[in-house]
Every structure is written in structure tokens, then in C-alpha cells.
């Protein structure tokens, strides 16, 4: 009390504020390493991925003059001779073959055949000096007659700008037509919409099965004594710690035509010929449910452990039937666990790659498979990043929806 009387109140408030600020700065500085870590490990790579999905430097870097020459072109008739001359000057000015290769790859992903067209022309350079534009055109047609075809020029004109929505559009089965308006791609090329849908439907089925299998297991574990529960929990956790590849290989052994499952079913006389359990959707789902089950059981168990048994007993003693008491009193209290487990399993499922690749057929592959294909086989990283971006966006939308529906903070513990 003596302090307050001797010091003016404003001074005290100021001191308190200063002390508070110091404390805050100290707290922030303690979390600084974590923030930097998050920035470097998550935000920067995701940012780079998103940038790469819209970046389109190949044509802009190498064919600047051609882009300018094609500015007023109607994009239908063969381009003017000046465009040929500009392209020849641009191609002749590419010092590094790597840049020509990158240009060829970029245009080829736009129109098949552009790779060989660009590279064969690039290799035939330089032409003799002081040719008129009309002569340049003639020479180019002599090197490769495809230079007379407008589609290759359309591809150049379309990609002249440094940024492009094309990868993202392609990732959702859209494209820009010659005039630049957005249209749907033909049925032959429309792959990613179905693949995205397939990715979500497989993930949803896996999540539901994990819940159906995980809920009774977690409930049973939560009713046991701590010692027994710990013992049984190890049985849940041991597969959790085993490599995914090992578990996938084990499923191949179990599920193949001559495998344990089919042999026992045939031995019991339940079936006459082996069931197709592998290299189809069923095999993928069986293995994924097995691999992801612990992610459902653990959050469910931790929530169920904290629910006192007294509520259930009270409901029954007040006249509810045991089943009704279970569903109306107990189950609602496990919603946070169901939400956390379901979301965890679903989000992990969406990114699955190895399991469907090894256990699924051609129409069981999820989006990650195609991301890997664009990264490694086609080396078209723009497309790979766009697909990754779509996957990320879809996941965020679903998460937001979940938050809307559940209206509660999520704990993933």
C-alpha cells in the first residue's frame, strides 16, 4: 500500500506495461527458434511450391522478341514473316543448350512434338547472316515443315508471359483455348477431376473403416485396467512403428491368390476360386486401414480415458436402456476424439502414395502418384506443384468445413 501512495499511479502503470512488454519480448524470443523452424521447414517450401505452380519463365526468358512480334497476331492464320525472323533471332541468342532444352520441355507439355521441333531447329542454327524475314521463314520451313502449323506458334504466344494459370487450370481439367478463354479439356484428357474425386473417396472409405474398427477397440482398451491396457496398446503400436513398405509386402503375402486368406477361405469351402483381393481398390483399402488404424485409436483412447463412467451409470440408473445410454450419453462425449482421429486419418490418407502404387491397379492411384510421375518421369515440376497446390487447397477447405461443422477448437492429441 505504501508504494501506491508514494508513486504516481501513471508511473506504476507505465512500469507495469514496460515489465509486461519485457516479459512478452522474452516469451517471444523463447519461441523464436520454433518460429524460424516453422518458417524454414513449412512456410518457405510451401510458398516455393505455390510460386512454381504459376511460374512460367521458360518462354519469357528465351523468346522475348518472338512474344513481342506475336502480340498483334490473330492466332489463327500463319504468323507474319517478322515472327519467324524474331524466333530465329531469339533461338540463335540462346547461349546455353540447357535453356533451349527447358524451352523445348515447356512447349512440349503444351503441345506434343514441340520438343523435337525446337531442338532440331536449335541445332540447325545459326543461319547465314543478312537474310530477309521471308528468307528466314523459308529456311525454317526447310529445317522443319511443322513451323507452318499455327498450333506451335499459338503455344509460344500463349506462354509469352512470365506467369501462367495453365498448370493450375490443367490440375482441375480446364485449359485456356487459343483465344485465352477458359474451357473444359476434352474427355480424353480429363483425368485429374476423377483422380481428385478418387483420392477423396478412398480417403473417406478408409476413415470410415478406421472409425468402425477403431471405436470398439479404443472403448475396450479404455475399460481395461492400466496394466492390461498398456500391454494391448503395445499391440496397436508395434505395427505403427513398423515400416510401411514391410507392412505392404506382408499384405501382398497374405492377400495374393495363393495367400493365407484365400487358402483358408478355400480350405473352409467358403469359396471355389481365389478372390481378387490385391491390385484393386479392395487391397488398397485393406492395407491403408491397417496402416492408419493407430491414428484413429490413439486420439479416441485418450478422449475415452477422460470420460468418467459415472455418467453412463447415472443414465442407466435413471431408467435409460444401456444401448440408448451408450449412444445418447457416452458417444457424444467422444466426439472430440472421433473428430481428431477422423481428421488425422483422412488428411494422412489423402497423401498416400506407396500403398496404392504397390497394391492398386491403374485406376486406384491417388493424386500423389501423379505428382510423383510429373516430378520424376515427365520432369514437369510446374504441373507437379500445381497438383500439390490443389491437394493443399482441398485439404484446407475440408478442414475449414470441419471447423464450421464441429465449431470447436481441434486438439490432435
Amino acid at each position, binding site marked *: 500500500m505504501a508504494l501506491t501512495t508514494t508513486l504516481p499511479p501513471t508511473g506504476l502503470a507505465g512500469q507495469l506495461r514496460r515489465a509486461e512488454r519485457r516479459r512478452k519480448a522474452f516469451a517471444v524470443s523463447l519461441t523464436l527458434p520454433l518460429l524460424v523452424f516453422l518458417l524454414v521447414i513449412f512456410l518457405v517450401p510451401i510458398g516455393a511450391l505455390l510460386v512454381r505452380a504459376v511460374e512460367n519463365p521458360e518462354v519469357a526468358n528465351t523468346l522475348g522478341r518472338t512474344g513481342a512480334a506475336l502480340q498483334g497476331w490473330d492466332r489463327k492464320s500463319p504468323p507474319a514473316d517478322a515472327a519467324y525472323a524474331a524466333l530465329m533471332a531469339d533461338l540463335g541468342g540462346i547461349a*546455353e*543448350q*540447357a535453356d*533451349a*532444352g*527447358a524451352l*523445348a*520441355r515447356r512447349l*512440349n*507439355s503444351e503441345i*506434343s*512434338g*514441340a*520438343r*523435337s521441333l525446337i*531442338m532440331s531447329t536449335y541445332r540447325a542454327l545459326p543461319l547465314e547472316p543478312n537474310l530477309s524475314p521471308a528468307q528466314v521463314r523459308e529456311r525454317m520451313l526447310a529445317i522443319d515443315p511443322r513451323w507452318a502449323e499455327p498450333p506451335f506458334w499459338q503455344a509460344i504466344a500463349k506462354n509469352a508471359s512470365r506467369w501462367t494459370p495453365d498448370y493450375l487450370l490443367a490440375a482441375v481439367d480446364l485449359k485456356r483455348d487459343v483465344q485465352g478463354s477458359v474451357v473444359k479439356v476434352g*474427355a*480424353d*484428357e*480429363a*483425368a485429374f477431376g*476423377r*483422380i481428385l474425386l*478418387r483420392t477423396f473417396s478412398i480417403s473417406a472409405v478408409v476413415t470410415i473403416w478406421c472409425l468402425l474398427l477403431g471405436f470398439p477397440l479404443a472403448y475396450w482398451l479404455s475399460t481395461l485396467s492400466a496394466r492390461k491396457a498398456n500391454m494391448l496398446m503395445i499391440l496397436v503400436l508395434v505395427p505403427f512403428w513398423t515400416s510401411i513398405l514391410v507392412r505392404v509386402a506382408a499384405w501382398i503375402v497374405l492377400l*495374393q*491368390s*495363393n495367400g493365407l486368406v484365400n487358402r483358408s477361405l478355400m480350405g473352409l469351402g467358403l469359396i471355389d476360386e481365389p478372390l481378387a483381393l*490385391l*491390385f484393386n481398390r479392395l487391397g488398397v483399402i485393406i492395407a491403408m486401414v491397417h496402416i492408419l488404424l493407430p491414428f484413429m485409436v490413439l486420439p479416441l483412447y485418450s478422449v475415452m480415458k477422460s470420460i468418467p463412467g459415472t455418467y453412463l451409470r447415472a443414465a442407466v440408473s435413471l431408467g435409460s436402456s444401456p444401448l440408448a445410454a451408450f449412444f445418447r450419453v457416452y458417444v457424444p462425449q467422444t466426439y472430440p476424439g472421433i473428430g481428431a482421429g477422423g481428421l488425422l486419418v483422412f488428411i494422412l490418407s489423402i497423401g498416400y502414395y506407396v500403398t496404392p*502404387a*504397390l497394391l*492398386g*491397379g*491403374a*485406376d486406384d*492411384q491417388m493424386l500423389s502418384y*501423379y505428382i510423383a*510421375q510429373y*516430378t*520424376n*518421369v*515427365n*520432369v*514437369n*515440376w510446374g504441373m507437379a506443384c500445381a497438383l500439390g497446390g490443389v491437394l493443399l487447397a482441398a485439404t484446407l477447405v475440408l478442414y475449414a468445413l470441419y471447423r464450421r461443422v464441429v465449431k470447436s477448437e481441434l486438439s490432435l492429441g
Partner: protein
Amino acid sequence: MTFKPVLAALAVAAALPALAQSQLTVVNFGGANGAAQKKAYFEPYEKATGAKVVGVEYNGEQAKIKAMVESKKVSWDVVEVESPDVTRGCDEGLFEKLDYSKIGNKADFTPAAIHECGIGTFVWSTVMAYNGDKLKTAPTTWADFWDVKKFPGKRAMRKGARYNLEFALMADGVAVADVYKVLATKDGAERAFKKLTELKPNIQWWEAGAQPPQFLVAGDVVMTTAYNGRIDAAQREGKNLKITWTGGIYDLDYWVMPKGTPNKDAALKYIALASSPDAQAEYAKNISYGPTNTKALAKLDAKVLGNLPTSATNAKTALQFNVSFWADQGEALEKRFAAWAAQ
């Protein structure tokens, strides 16, 4: 006393480049092929130079090479790559150009082996294979492969468009010489996918080269497309698997050096040794992939020759994989395959 550890550290640092010099990292696809390379190439090279060869396995991911070259941290010295990747990587500046004067006489090699950025090391083939214990009559053509009445049961095919479109066209009666001509047209591609649709309910897809022989042995499928070396490896283990060479698609794998490898001279020396007739003959004895150095053929007996994709009888009806066609059309066709599979 205190600077002793410093001196020691300096000595170690000075020795490091020397260590790196005497070590060569060679990357291949592993498996039976990797084992054969170890015996035919790694060990003789180690003996000849005293250097150590570190073998690394990969699955053909060009992204790794691209990332290494772009970040200028090249730790792979020699890499085995498939034919589409030689041209593509060369165009994009991922590989060193080869100095053939240090490798050998260009005229000794099959023409397809000579590339400015890589040299063909062996010829392999994607063929039709079946289990001799289970099929009494041998399928002889791709039309047989498609004939589910005559040969009931599942067939295994590689997950993807490559090879399968060619096989489909051959099954539809297109002559070997015309396959790529037809496939390059819009109608031709349509025709190939249509033919593939016929077989779709009976196809079990494989992802890795090790799977087809497993499927055959387990009885999951009656026939499969397979890499001939994988079938050969299973035969060496005593399995009665058989190859139908008619309409097989042969292709080459190449040695390349990623651009900026610190061990360029040693890498070239390794490539020269691995391209010599003796080493290639030894390799072909260990796995039935054909040598690219034609002088190696004289060192092989009739039995080994009979199992190679390059032997006269086996190559007679074979189709050479068209690298430039797939470099141009591959991305579009693979995407179309994904759309087709989803239908």
C-alpha cells in the same frame, strides 16, 4: 600441444579430396542387373585402378539428377539411365558430353548406342512371358495375349501407356514396322486405347520389374509383359518361365555423367572399361541383356546368345523403342492413359 589436433584436422582435410578421388559413385537400377554390373564392371574397375566403386540404387528418377546439377552438388559420378532420359537430360544440360576418344572406337558399337551425352551399355527388351508349367500351348503373338477365350485368365501389364500402346496396336494387326507411324496419328492412338479397353477387365497392373515373374510363379496371371532380364533371373532360380520374343520392344540403357561431377576422369575411365568387349561379355553371361559392343558377341557361346534380345532369331520380329516419339508424345499419352484408366 594445443595445435596438434588442429594439425591433425588439417591433415584429414587435406586427405579428404584424395579420398574422394579414389572413390567412384555408380548409380544403377539394382536387382539382378545391379548384381551383374557389380561382377562385370565394378570389381574389374576396382582391381584395375585401386579405387573403390560405391554402388547406389535408384529407380530412374531424373528429378534427383536435375536437383543435383541445379544445386551444383553432384555426388553421382556415373548413372545408368533409360533412353528417353538421355536425350531429354542432354537437351536440358544435365549431362556431360562424352569424349569418345577415351572410350573406344565408335564403329564397334551398335549405332543406337552412340549418343553425345551417353553411351549405350546394354540392350534389354519388354517381352511377353508365361509360366511353362501352367500353359500347355504357348502364346505366340500379341493377338494371343489379347485372346481371353483361347487363354482364359488375367494378364499383367505395366501401369502406364509406354509399351502397352505398341503391344495393343500389334495385337490389332499393325505390322511391326508401322507401329509408330500409326501411333503418331490421332486415329492410331485412339485405336490403341480402344484395343486396350478390350482387355481392361482382364489386366492386373504391375509397377516394379520384379512383380511380373512373381505373378507368374504365384499363378495370379497366365501371361504378362516383363523385362526379359527379370524372367531370365527367375529361370536361373529354376522357375519354368518362358519368353515369347515375337513383337518384343527392345531398348538401350545408357551410361551418363551428371554435369559437374568432380570425378570426371575416373568416370570416363569406368565407362571405357564397362564398354570394353570383355566386360560386356562377362555382363551378358550374368544377365541376359545384350551387349552394345559388337565385339563382345564373339566371346559368348550359343546358349548365352540365344537368350539375348540382340540374337538374330529373337530380334527378327522385335520393335525398336522409338525414343524421339516418346520424348514428344510421352507426357500427353501418359496423361491420356490416366484418364483412360479412370473411365
